[in-house]
């Protein structure tokens, strides 16, 4: 605990800002039902009420639902789904990446070429295609994005562990007769963790933006679930009337992305030992 505070004290202001943003988002996401004044898809007033009127701090949306409530629940849905998707992407990409380096040979070749094929297809178009065929249920959405994103995780995990697998302690473990799973989880994974953790933050941002893009196009999180990107889409006509309300969910997306990036930057700086030259 003491070390944690010490670490926090040494953090640059940008990282502290990022951490605060993340903490706030997580808090809001977890306690959404408590914090939100109304139910998630409850119609509580007339449509397109401006901010501050009739006690709706942020006004109401195109169906007359409270904007603030939608925003709060949006944190829960968008962040939650992005987080689960990123975890799954790391599980798939990480395991295959480490297996590829540890076993080498044809396993490495096969996995590598499969990833090449997946990466050759533009992700957004590929996702649109599959989601149009299968329909947009949340589990399908998660699996599709996770698989598409795992290719990049695979590449990184493979590149990082390539440098570790040739070290003597891995050779020593092989000569001891250890199994592949032990070598992956005990010898290689702990030593390739820092870049992977940093990548997790960045990938989370990309997944988050990707889901937002899909939702904006109408193939992501389906109504009536609150979701920031769909909110932007639903409210976008207001922009022409100089009403900044659609910028609120967009700003929420941007703020989280920036916050995560700040923290990742700091983390990379800490673990890679890079110092700023004076």
């Amino acid at each position, binding site marked *: 605990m003491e070390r944690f505070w010490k670490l926090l004290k040494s953090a640059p202001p940008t990282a502290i800002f990022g951490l605060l943003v993340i903490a706030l988002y997580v808090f809001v996401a977890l306690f959404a039902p408590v914090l939100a004044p109304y139910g998630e898809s409850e119609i509580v007033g007339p449509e397109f009420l401006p901010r501050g009127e009739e006690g709706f701090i942020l006004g109401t949306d195109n169906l007359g639902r409270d904007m603030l409530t939608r925003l709060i629940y949006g944190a829960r849905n968008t962040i939650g789904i992005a987080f689960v998707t990123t975890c799954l992407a790391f599980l798939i990409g990480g395991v295959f990446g480490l297996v590829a380096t540890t076993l080498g040979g044809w396993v490495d070749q096969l996995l590598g070429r499969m990833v090449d094929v997946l990466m050759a297809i533009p992700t957004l178009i590929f996702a649109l295609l599959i989601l149009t065929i299968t329909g947009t249920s949340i589990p399908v959405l998660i699996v599709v994005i996770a698989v598409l994103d795992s290719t990049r995780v695979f590449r990184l995990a493979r590149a990082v562990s390539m440098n570790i697998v040739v*070290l*003597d302690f891995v*050779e020593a473990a092989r000569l001891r007769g250890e199994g592949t799973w032990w070598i992956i989880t005990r010898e290689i994974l702990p030593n390739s963790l820092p870049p992977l953790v940093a990548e997790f933050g960045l990938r989370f941002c990309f997944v988050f933006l990707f889901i937002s893009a899909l939702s904006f196009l109408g193939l992501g999180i389906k109504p009536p679930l609150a979701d920031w990107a769909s909110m932007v889409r639903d409210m976008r006509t207001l922009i022409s009337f100089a009403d900044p309300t659609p910028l609120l969910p967009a700003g929420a997306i941007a703020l989280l992305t920036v916050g995560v990036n700040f923290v990742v930057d700091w983390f990379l700086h800490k673990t890679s030992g890079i110092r700023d030259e004076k």
Partner: protein
Amino acid sequence: MRNSDAGKGDVLLEMRGLRIEGQSEDQWNEIVHGVDVTLRRGEVLGLIGESGAGKSTIGIASMGFARPGCRITGGTILFDGMDLRAASDEQLRKLRGSRIAYVAQSAAAAFNPAHKLIDQYTEAPVQHGVKPKAEAEREAMELYRRLRLPDPESIGFRYPHQVSGGQLQRAMTAMAMACHPDLIIFDEPTTALDVTTQIEVLAAIKDVVEEFNTAAIYITHDLAVVAQMADRIMVLRYGDLIEEGNARGMLADPKETYTRQLLAVRSYRKEEAPPDESPVPLLEVRNVTASYGGQVIVLDDVSVKVGRGRTVAVVGESGSGKSTLARVITGLLPPSEGSVLFNGEELPASYKNRNRDQLRHAQMIYQMPDTALNPRQRIRDVIGRPLGFYLGLKGAEREKRTRELLQMIEMDPDEFIDRLPGELSGGQKQRICIARALAAEPELIICDEVTSALDQLVAEEILKLLQRLQDELGVTYLFITHDLATVRAISDEVVVMLEGKVVEQGGKADIFTPPHDPYTDLLLSSVPEMDPDWLDDLLADRAARKARGEKVMESADQ
């Protein structure tokens, strides 16, 4: 030449009370504590000490420079009357390369791989406006010839990867001489080279420095090397000056205990182990031929026998195939022909097909203890794993045995058992590697250059420890090394390898007494001795024998 009229004697460089701090984490610690250095024109000063002594830091400071993460905090640096600490960057830039030059340990890393040698040579003189390119090129060829590089007219037009390590180091020395500097700093220029190559580089450097009357600071950890090069020696330890004096005087009569320890470092000799009486040797490598990818043959019909309780040293220079031999024995590289027998029983060629007991009986200790230990595993797990894996020890039993092993390698269990490898020194890490090997209770331990990454005093402690363990446990060692001092210290039998073949093998006494195979002779005679006249005598002797028409090898690739 600029300073041909200035004879020896004038003070060229004077550093007084030099203090340098280094940054670790976020703190500044003093790493050089007020050292005085005086260097006269034409004089060669040897800076000697183990790692962390501050010798390189002081060497670099004489250019008025501190490496990234270091800063000069106190003292004065006067170079030919000019205060380098007060000098502007512009003034320093003019000085470096033209009047002060630097030769780094790894020439391969110091050369730009994308440019030809001669273009890199001419860069400094042309940049500093000392001479035009054509003239610089002519001079380069002259220097290449003087440094005894082959084809001095054309070698400069090659790229760095097209010449050998020893040649590259000489090309770098030539580059340092390009502007006829007053001072050259040699930072361990021969440490990365094989002994037989080292001789050529040492002789070349010595000649050129004498010829141009250049002052030099020669930094090394090897007292025998500095004995050949230096007029005066400074012994450093932990950033303090221990002893300073005339080279011959100090070598003949060291005043300080630490200097005496450094001098005595190669004198350790083990008692010969009793011969193996049993008819079947513990390990037998039978007519092994191996290659990487079927193209280049790295081992050519190699046969080696290792008797129980004995230490067999495999000695050879880089590229001799000695490490490949270890890879074949451990099963990492299945041989294309031949077999490996353990206790008379043929081992499967690949380690993947060996059973747990076969793996357990042959353990390995590596050259670099830093990479041989998983940085994320605590000592308890490092040593405990083979105990659990091979011997099935668990819980309290395993903990007890781990502690016993730590005691065997002379490390306090309470202090070290919870540490990570990053919290240990190099010598301590190597001890942990030894304990990890011992935990498997093996019959054979393969030691691959186990002391070459360590400081000399630490290396000697490791050798003594290995010897004590052999006396107590009767374990057999296959000792792979390029260092003949190690061979002399620890072996019972010696196998000399060259280009994948066994040149000579036999008992230690046989190998070390003439007559030798020509290569063994070259190898043995190339090991520097503390005698300051050794290099001159050796070169004279080789020349004389050659003149008499005897077969004398002067480098390993002849």
